[in-house]
């Protein structure tokens, strides 16, 4: 990342002038609220954007918030959100992974070969495919973590290399059909209404009970109790909406399970916390005994694995693996989603939920523009504007927070 760009350093290091002080005061109200919200990793700005998008497009097309459309949106967003989750993991380290689209395409091709040509059952082919994604990520992670090559370069090479692999695997035909009903069910099926309600009940009860147990230990505040209640209400409302259409999409449930797992790992385990420490200041982390190389290596292995999961979702959705699988704007949408959701490009700040919220924003806007019959060029331009806005916000926040000190990004 352009961490050492001279103008930035200059602006950061000379915050004492009258001019700087004045402009800081001017932007402090709004940005102060935003930065305190974002630095704690809350998703408030992303959620606020979602509300704005919902209100706007609903006013343009009454179909936008219909259960049917929301169900479709949830399925479509699952693919981008999965790739964005992988991107979040490496962004937290102040790294980037440009290969995720190609990895998902190549692994989808591998799945196609194993199942279409090799007649392998899905429960053997899918683990192999995921392992291949992990291996591709690990391979890149090795160059980045042990040789110290910038991730931008390594994954750019990976993007090209794995695209080549994908095309080579697919051969002249270009497309492999995957007719397996189990694979198709991942994105094609929904939970029966009763099952949806049971899941909702279990989640709601568990979330509230956990909050109560904590409260019994004397830490029950409005803040700590309010969030679980809102969450439980959201889950129930979500299931109600989905059940008004076809039911809870399996793919969306699968995505939520991935996100909960990712949340647990990043927020509550040592390696997860080390991810943030390395993203914040790699040299300080190294000096404190954090295994920086292993963390970097693991992060890219995880992002590769998640790209393979994305490839699986894509193969399921299209019932095939083709030369376009994982291509197009998928990678850019995923990076955009992660950043829009509130994960910083500069490392050390963000959360796995930004993958979900960002994907819903990107997908919601695309979907809404479709409904209002906007042309593809307009769609791209609007999406571009949103990404630019999100990155600007991220950069401004970072400058405010760093107050002349360098946050993160120092490559060891």
């Amino acid at each position: 990342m352009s961490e050492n760009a001279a103008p930035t350093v200059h602006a950061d290091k000379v915050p004492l002038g009258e001019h700087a002080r004045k402009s800081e005061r001017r932007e402090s109200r709004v940005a102060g609220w935003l930065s305190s919200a974002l630095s704690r990793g809350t998703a408030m700005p992303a959620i606020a954007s979602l509300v704005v998008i919902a209100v706007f497009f609903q006013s343009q097309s009454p179909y936008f918030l219909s259960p049917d459309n929301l169900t479709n949106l949830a399925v479509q967003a699952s693919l981008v959100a999965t790739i964005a989750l992988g991107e979040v993991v490496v962004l937290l380290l102040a790294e980037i992974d440009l290969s995720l689209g190609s990895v998902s395409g190549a692994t989808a091709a591998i799945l196609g070969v194993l199942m279409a040509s090799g007649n392998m059952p899905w429960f053997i082919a899918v683990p192999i495919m995921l392992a291949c994604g992990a291996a591709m990520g690990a391979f890149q992670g090795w160059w980045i973590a042990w040789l110290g090559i910038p991730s931008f370069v390594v994954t750019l090479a990976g993007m090209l290399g794995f695209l080549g692999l994908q095309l080579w695997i697919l051969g002249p035909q270009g497309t492999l059909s995957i007719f397996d009903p189990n694979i198709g069910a991942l994105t094609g099926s929904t939970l029966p209404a009763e099952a949806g309600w049971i899941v909702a009940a279990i989640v709601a009860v568990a979330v509230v009970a956990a909050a109560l147990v904590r409260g019994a230990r004397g830490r029950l505040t409005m803040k700590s109790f309010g969030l679980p209640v809102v969450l439980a209400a959201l889950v129930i409302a979500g299931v109600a909406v989905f059940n008004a259409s076809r039911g809870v999409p399996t793919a969306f449930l699968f995505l939520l399970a991935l996100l909960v797992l990712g949340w647990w790992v990043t927020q509550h385990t040592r390696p997860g916390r080390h991810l943030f420490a390395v993203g914040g200041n790699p040299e300080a982390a190294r000096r404190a005994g954090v295994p920086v190389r292993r963390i970097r290596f693991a992060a890219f292995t995880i992002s590769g694995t998640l790209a393979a999961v994305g490839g699986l979702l894509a193969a399921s959705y299209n019932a095939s693996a083709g030369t376009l699988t994982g291509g197009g704007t998928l990678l850019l949408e995923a990076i955009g989603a992660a950043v829009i959701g509130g994960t910083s490009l500069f490392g050390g700040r963000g959360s796995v939920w930004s993958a979900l919220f960002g994907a819903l924003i990107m997908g919601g806007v695309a979907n809404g523009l479709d409904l209002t019959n906007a042309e593809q060029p307009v769609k791209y331009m609007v999406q571009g504007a949103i990404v630019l806005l999100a990155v600007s916000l991220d950069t401004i926040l970072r400058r405010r927070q760093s107050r002349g000190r360098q946050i993160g990004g120092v490559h060891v």
Partner: protein
Amino acid sequence: MLNEGTGRRLRRRRPVPPPPGDPLGGGEALRVVAVTKWFGSVQALDQVSMAVNHGEVVALVGDNGAGKSTLVNVIAGVTAPDAGEFYVHGEQVAIRSTDDAATFGIRTVHQEQTLADNLDVVENLFLGRELCRGVGPLERVDFAAMRQRAQAMLSGLGITTIADIGSPVAQLSGGQRQTVAVGRATLENYPIVLLDEPTSGLGVAECQRVMELVLRLRAQGAATVIVSQNIDEIFEVADRIVVLHLGKVGAVFRRADTTPEEVVGAVMGMAS
């Protein structure tokens, strides 16, 4: 990071030496022999040898660029030396990483690059040594316990200047940040503690707290190396004073047998 200078293959890991229980035990805790380090064409350390005993405070002094931080970093496993031998409790060891240093019971407070700005005070205090609970895949960081310990530790140190230990350290002042960095040295009873300019940027009261901390470490029997530019401070806590000059050991004094003038002279490179 290979410790080429040791010339021998050494076992990578040893158990942590038992924490010193007996303050009067004395005994050598750490010895470095003929440590040499080049940065390109600059020789930061030239055949530096020194030792520190349990229950002893050794002050490392010298001009800017004399090599003090380099020596500390080499012992802490942050910088790989070009040559040199290391002995912990008389046994030769290879320090190839910060992890190795921690295994040998060496705890370091560095001069710079100490904190991750995006993490809060508690997480920074425990960085790399997080308290966990649960087993297997359910093992998780115990934030509540860390918070409690951090609070107890800061009040034990007499630190009252950090209002909210849950705020990111980016929001702290320079001195408050330094307090957090120094606080790390007191998380456990470390047998060997290296402090690289621990009082830089600290207020008068906080400096005094750090001096009290150093004296407490000595009373507990820890072997302490403290780098400082402040002569008064050094004469307050140090038992011995090692002067580095242009990467070489210029002189070694016992505090009882020397004067500040003599030490300052040696720092400036005058023959004493």
